[in-house]
């Protein structure tokens, strides 16, 4: 199935979790805000969130300083 992550289209196996997508793309889990189809997914739900075909995911890195 096709999933858009940060604007790029990727192919993943069916029933993949958000956590596995992040792992397969080699993105660090640390300080990432994940948005799936317009909703923020809490970090503790990354491994329970099953991603559907044609989903749109944004992974946004937060760094300190202000």
């Amino acid at each position, binding site marked *: 199935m096709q999933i858009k992550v940060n604007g790029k289209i990727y192919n993943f196996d069916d029933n993949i979790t958000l956590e596995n997508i992040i792992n397969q793309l080699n993105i660090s889990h640390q*300080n990432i*805000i994940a*948005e799936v189809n*317009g*909703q*923020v997914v*809490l*970090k503790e739900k990354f491994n329970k969130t099953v991603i559907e075909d044609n989903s749109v995911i*944004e992974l*946004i*890195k*937060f*760094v*300190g*300083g*202000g």
Partner: protein
Amino acid sequence: MNFIVNGKDYYTEKTLTIADLIKEINIDADIFIVNSFPVAASYIINDSDVITLIKKGSILDKEYLEYQLISRQGLKEYNILKNSSAVICGLGGLGSNAAVSLARAGIGRLKLIDFDIVEPSNINRQAYFLEQIGINKTDALKEIINKISPYINVEISNIYLDETNILSELSGFQIILECFDSVSSKMLLIEKCVNNMPESYIIGASGVAGYYNTDIFKQKYIGSNCIIIGDFENEAGINHGLYAPRVAAAANIQANEAIRHLLKDK
């Protein structure tokens, strides 16, 4: 013909220049601003003009002062901003500078939240003064805003925001500015508020350290009610300082996003 002079409606049948108007209403003025832009005394007044007459260096009656303060902005916009509200979370380099800009723009209701006091290492990039070292940032910033404009209603909350209090502290504001220094607080605000506060527009920042070119600042949207400004890379850390120009640039991009949202420039 109807127009507005120093915030008050004015009606005349005559064709008037600014010089004629000054004579007619007997006001001492040498700066003339019409519809947000300075004009000469020979300017011929049109129907619906918004005119502010200022005597250079003087502070006029309090009833005129408010209109003089915002005469470069536009009255229609000011009336919207005066009835708007914003809460600023974290009063460091981002929050103190953003709050000052929002106060200058005339946002009528500002809430300032921070748990910390002003200390010497803040002064290089935050809006505070040396004489304010040791006092609460909330009190210090309220004092600065009161000195800029007495027309802003400033509320303060001297607390550490965490998951038990963040929703209640931020509820009821049109704009939420995420201006924290710590990454865990930034994450908490975004995770708690984007889904749960759809009526508020959340404006955050990530990656404002150093003195890198500001053209690498990006804007990323989260959900339908959140935007984050920054380069998403340059973190404050050892040998990686925070500098007033870049952090205040990000703060003012946040403040500008607030104004754009409130005036519906999107």
